[in-house]
C-alpha cells in the first residue's frame, strides 16, 4: 500500500519534471530526462503490479482522508495530483491498450470491452488523431532534439488493472468530460463521443509525456489530468 502511494507520488513528480524540462535554458537534457523516464517506468510498474489495492490518494491530498477500499476516494485530490499515466510504446501497440476499450465503449458495446480485440478502425482513428496532435508544438522539441527516451513496454494486462481500479474514482471528478470510459462505468453516465476536441485535450498531455517517448495511452486516466491538459495544451 505504501509503495503504491509512493509510486503515485513519484509518478506525479516525474511528470512535473518532464514538463518543466521543456523551458530549460540550453535545451532538454537527454541524460536527466532519460533517468526521469526510468523512474517513471519503475513507479508505474510498482503502481500497477500491486494487485487489488485501491489507488491511494497522493499524500498531499490525503490530509484528511483515510484510504478507502475500491473505489478510491472521489475528491478533487485526484484532479490536483494526476494519477500515473502508464507509458505506451509505439503506436502499433496502442491497439492492445485501452484503446479497444475506449472504442468499444464509444460504440456502446460495453459487454465486449474487457480484453476484446479492438475494432480496427477505432484505434487507427485514435492513433491518427494522436499523431495529428504530434505535429503540434508539443512534439516539436522532441524532434528537434532527437531525444525521446524509450517508452517502457506496457503489458495489456496492466492496462486492464489500471482501468478497473481507477475508473470509479475518476468518474466522479471528471464527469462528462470523461469520454471513452470503460465497461465499469455506471449506467446513466453520459459518455460523450470521441470528437476532435476531446481528442485534442486528451492527447495533449499524452504528447507531453511523449516528449520522453512514452505515449500515455491510458486515455481515461489522462483525461483526468485536467490541470495538466490545460497547462500543456496552452504550452
Amino acid at each position, binding site marked *: 500500500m505504501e509503495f503504491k502511494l*509512493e*509510486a503515485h*507520488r*513519484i509518478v506525479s*513528480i516525474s511528470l512535473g*519534471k518532464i514538463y518543466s524540462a521543456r523551458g530549460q*535554458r*540550453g*535545451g532538454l*537534457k*537527454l*541524460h*536527466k530526462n*532519460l*533517468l526521469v523516464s*526510468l*523512474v517513471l517506468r*519503475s*513507479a508505474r510498474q*510498482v503502481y500497477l503490479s500491486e494487485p487489488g489495492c485501491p489507488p491511494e490518494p497522493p499524500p498531499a491530498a490525503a490530509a484528511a482522508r483515510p484510504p478507502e477500499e475500491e473505489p478510491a476516494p472521489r475528491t478533487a485530490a485526484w484532479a490536483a495530483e494526476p494519477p500515473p499515466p502508464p507509458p505506451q*510504446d*509505439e503506436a502499433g501497440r496502442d491497439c492492445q491498450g485501452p484503446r479497444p476499450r475506449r472504442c468499444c465503449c464509444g460504440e456502446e458495446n460495453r459487454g465486449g470491452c474487457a480484453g476484446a480485440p479492438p475494432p480496427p478502425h477505432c484505434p487507427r482513428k485514435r492513433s491518427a488523431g494522436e499523431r495529428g496532435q504530434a505535429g503540434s508544438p508539443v512534439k516539436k522539441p522532441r524532434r*528537434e*532534439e*532527437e*531525444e*525521446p*527516451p*524509450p*517508452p517502457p513496454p506496457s503489458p495489456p494486462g496492466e492496462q486492464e488493472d489500471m482501468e478497473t481500479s481507477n475508473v470509479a474514482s475518476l468518474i466522479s471528478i471528471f464527469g462528462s468530460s470523461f469520454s471513452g470510459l470503460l465497461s465499469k462505468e455506471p449506467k446513466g453516465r453520459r459518455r460523450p463521443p470521441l470528437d476532435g476536441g476531446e481528442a485534442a485535450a486528451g492527447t495533449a498531455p499524452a504528447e507531453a509525456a511523449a516528449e520522453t*517517448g512514452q505515449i500515455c495511452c491510458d486515455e481515461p486516466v489522462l483525461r483526468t489530468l485536467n490541470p495538466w491538459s490545460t497547462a500543456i495544451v496552452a504550452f
Partner: protein
Amino acid sequence: MIPGFGSLMQDVLWCFSQVKGTIDVGVTEADIISTVEFNHTGELLATGDKGGRVVIFQREQESKNQPHRRGEYNVYSTFQSHEPEFDYLKSLEIEEKINKIRWLPQQNAAYFLLSTNDKTVKLWKVSERDKRPEGYNLKDEDGRLRDPSMITMLRVPVLRPMDLMVEATPRRVFANAHTYHINSISVNSDYETYMSADDLRINLWNFEITNQSFNIVDIKPANMEELTEVITAAEFHPHHCNTFVYSSSKGTIRLCDMRTAALCDRHAKFFEEPEDPSNRSFFSEIISSISDVKFSHSGRYIMTRDYLTVKVWDLNMENRPIETYQVHDYLRSKLCSLYENDCIFDKFECVWNGSDSVIMTGSYNNFFRMFDRNTKRDVTLEASRENSKPRAILKPRKVCVGGKRRKDEISVDSLDFSKKILHTAWHPSENIIAVAATNNLYIFQDKVN
C-alpha cells in the same frame, strides 16, 4: 617543495590557504564555478564558471623570506571563453557554461588549454608579454601610420620591457560536431589529439584541424525510443594513446582500443558490478549512473563516482570494483526527497592525489571527503568561511545518522543541500587541493611544519 608521494592521509593536516570569490549572500548564477583543473605542473589552476568565463591562477614563487606562504595562487588571467549562443534551427539557446577545462602539457613558453561548453570546444593560448617593440619606422608610438614621405631615417626597432601582460587568445574553435551536450573532453597522451564526448557520441579531434573530427563511439540507437543509456564521462588512458574509457548512465564502464576498429562501438573491456538486490528502489537506476570517471596516474586503475559511492576498478578485473567507498550513504533513505528537489541528479566529480594513494570527492553542506586507499581511513572536511583563517587547520566533520547527536556532529536533516561540492582538483605532486563551493574557490594545503 614537500612531495605528496607516499604520504598517509592521517599524517596530513589540511589547512586553509586561500579562498577566491565574493562573500555576497546572493550568488549570481554566472559566478557559479563549473569546473576546476590544475595544469600538469600544478603551477596553474584554472576555473570555469556558468557565465562562460575562465579564470587562471598562478602559483607565486616560494619566497625564502616567507616560508609560511607556500606559494599562493593569484589571478593570472581572466577571459571570456564562451558566450551564449542561439541555435536558430532548433530554437534552442546554447548555454555558455564551461563544462570542462583540460590543460595541454606545456611545450613552449605559452600555456594551452581546452575549454568546452555544451556544443563547442576551444583551444586557448595563454601567453605572457613583458616586452614590446619600440621604434617602428612606419608607425609612431601610438600606432598611427606615418606618412612615408616624412621619414628621413631608418632605425631598427628594439624590445623594451613593459608591465607584464597576460593575454589569452582562442587559437582553435572546434564546433558543430555535437548534436547532444558535451560532458567530457580528454587530451590524448600523444598530445596531438583529444576527444570530446556528448550523451551519445565521442569524437576524436586533431588539434590542428577544426573542420572535421572522427566519430569513434556512437551509441545512438536507430530508433530513439529504444534508448536506454547515455555516455556520462570519457577519458583517455594517461600513457596508452590508443586506449580510452567511457562511463554510462547505467553504471557501466567500457574500455576501448582505437587500434581494433575505426568505430569503437565494441568495447575491449566492460566493467560492471552486479546490482545488490537488497538495495533496489525506484531510484536504483539514477544512483547507479556514473557521473565521473578518472584514470589513476599510473594508468592501472579507474575511479568512478556515482551518486552515493566512489569505486576503484582494476583494469584487469571487469566483474566488480576492487574498492568501494561510501560517500554519504545516509542519503540512501532520502532518495525520494532528493529526487524531488533534483539533488539526485547532481554530478559529483572525483580526483586522485598525485601518488594514487588518496581519492577525494565532494558532498553536500560544502563537505568533501577523502579516502586513503591504503589505510582505508576516511575524513570529511568542510569548505566554509568560518574555517577561513590563514593556516587554520580543518577539523574533521561528522554527520550524525541517527540517535543522539554529539556536540560537533551535524544531523542529516540539517544538511544544506544547496551547498554542494561538485568540482575538486588535486595538485599533481603536492598536497594542495582546490575545492569549488558554488561561487567560491577554496585552496587548502597540508600543514607546513
